[in-house]
């Protein structure tokens, strides 16, 4: 079977979840049923607990998210891992919607254009807010926001547009306020979007990576991922970006839009904040780059399918593994996805042992 038109898996026996493994008696999921629960040891940091399970009976712990308190005992209210930070005890859910935190690099999609603000879908329980004052407008930092900006908000960002941004602050109700006041944030183009469960993306210092094959990936902490052709800015900034450093590299590339700015100025924001940052046009993307992007997208889906945390190293490793499959379309097959996931894990284990 090289390339099949349709791959069908058939199951006659029914689709109910069947626990095929015999329970060995000592399951790691200890239910807090009956009096013996009280004598059991507390759940350690990192152990997996299920809702209703006793986490601790020690009242010194402060109770964080995912727990509840009953008769001096702390129970888990979500299925997830126990996290202990100083005296704060919380359970981080394995699944669930993204919970924004200040400083997160996220990707969002405009859901609504409102009064001096955009509502942005970031996959959280509430839409995030992007104020008109939190974006760079064409014309640079010193430009004042005027009434006309309020009236033409849709010409900057409209419903459906994708952007990457940073969570600036959180409101009382847990919804996020975003800002794009940096060159690395802003409207996204020249690429494709894909979505993985947010717990699979690990928070790190840097979320923009240049991958081999002239492709740049933005791994949003909220599980939204953007794959695009590496632009000059991306290439200049390398994998870790400090905005001021790449300023000189940028100015040359944009010369055609603003003649006469060849001299290096202190802040590049003005030049960069031309209308181009809100452009709705794609650059020319060669066929090979598109194929590479598709392959990256498929291997990321494969990693997500196998519930493997997504990092730059793993994406590259999976990409290399996937080269064994000549036809990119064959990567959507479940068996192939699982074998890629297995290969990535194996390779990591090998490296760890070596």
């Amino acid at each position, binding site marked *: 079977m090289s390339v099949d*038109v349709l*791959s069908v898996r058939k199951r*006659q026996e029914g689709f109910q979840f069947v626990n095929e493994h015999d329970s060995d008696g000592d399951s790691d999921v200890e239910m807090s049923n009956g009096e013996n629960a009280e004598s059991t040891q507390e759940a350690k940091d990192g152990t997996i607990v299920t809702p209703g399970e006793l986490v601790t009976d020690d009242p010194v712990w402060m109770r964080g998210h995912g727990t509840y308190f009953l008769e001096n005992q702390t129970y888990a209210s979500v299925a997830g891992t126990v996290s202990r930070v100083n005296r704060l005890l919380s359970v981080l859910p394995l699944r669930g919607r993204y919970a924004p935190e200040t400083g997160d690099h996220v990707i969002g999609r405009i859901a609504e254009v409102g009064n001096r603000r955009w509502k942005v879908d970031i996959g959280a329980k509430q839409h995030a807010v992007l104020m008109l004052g939190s974006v760079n407008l064409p014309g640079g930092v010193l430009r004042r926001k005027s009434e006309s900006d309020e009236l033409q908000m849709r010409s900057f960002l409209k419903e*459906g547009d994708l952007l990457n941004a940073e969570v600036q602050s959180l409101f009382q109700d847990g919804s996020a306020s975003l800002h794009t006041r940096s060159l690395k944030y802003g409207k996204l183009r020249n690429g494709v979007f894909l979505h993985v469960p947010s717990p699979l993306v690990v928070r790190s210092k840097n979320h923009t990576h240049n991958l081999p094959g002239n492709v740049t990936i933005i791994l949003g902490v909220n599980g939204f991922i953007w794959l695009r052709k590496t632009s000059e800015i991306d290439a200049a900034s390398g994998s870790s970006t400090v905005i001021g450093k790449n300023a000189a590299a940028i100015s040359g590339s944009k010369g055609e839009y603003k003649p006469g700015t060849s001299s290096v100025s202190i802040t590049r924001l003005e030049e960069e904040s031309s209308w181009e940052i809100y452009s709705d046009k794609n650059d020319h993307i060669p066929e090979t780059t598109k194929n590479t992007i598709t392959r990256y*997208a498929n291997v990321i889906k494969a990693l997500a399918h196998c519930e493997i945390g997504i990092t730059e190293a793993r994406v590259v490793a999976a990409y290399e593994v996937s080269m064994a499959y000549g036809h990119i379309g064959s*990567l*959507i097959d479940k068996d192939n996805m699982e074998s890629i996931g297995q290969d990535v894990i194996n390779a990591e284990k090998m490296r760890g042992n070596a």
Partner: protein
Amino acid sequence: MVLSVTEKLYLHESLVSNPPARPDGRSADQFRPIEIFTDFLPTSNGSSKIVASDGTECIVSAKCKVVDHTLEEDLIEVDVDIAGHRDDSPLVQGTLSVLNRVLLSQIDRGSLRLTKKYSFKLYIDVLVLSSYSHPLTLISFAIYSALNSTLLPTLISSDDDLDVAELPTFHDYDLTKLTIKVPVLFTVAVCGKNVIVDPASSESDVANNGILVTWYDGKVTAPVRTLGLNEDYVSGITPQSLADGLKLIEDIAPKVVKALDS
């Protein structure tokens, strides 16, 4: 989900290039993988559940009833429920009407005949639990699998009951397999000069037009028609594209049917 302008441009540009570069790397004639479960509903005569890789899920149940076929005109009745869509929405009503018409006009009444007076009437209930792209292909695959796994009670009374005022009687536990040919419906998206089969939702959003093609008994049959898959990119297509679309289905439909049968 609304796509951004640049995403759509990117997709459209990729799909009209030669050969079409689909967002998940599939070739033009490749379907997304599906999983089929059959015969899991104990109270219906035949059932199937189908899960596509994008999370689209559809359950079909077939139940039978003995009716006097001289009185009942229609021996098949389909009901469609799509989660998230009102029963009177164009999508649900259109799907329902297409399915009813296809099954009634194509399926041979004789295969449901029980005696000279009575026939089985099939009630086919379709429940789409979640749908991310045009669900018609998947529904028809599910109906196909459900009807091909349908078991009907075995008749033990005589099949000549014209003069006998007696209802048919059935064996207590023996069941006979229903053998009928079931039509399969395909959706094809036309993007520029290319035709692609089984468009995902993002592909539908940038397709120039869609074609609904019915496949029954080894050939393309009615209804065949254009389907607008979106409102932004819909435009005219050349007669050649239409012919290409039909040709594509003619090429792959036997393979699809074989895959469903296996």
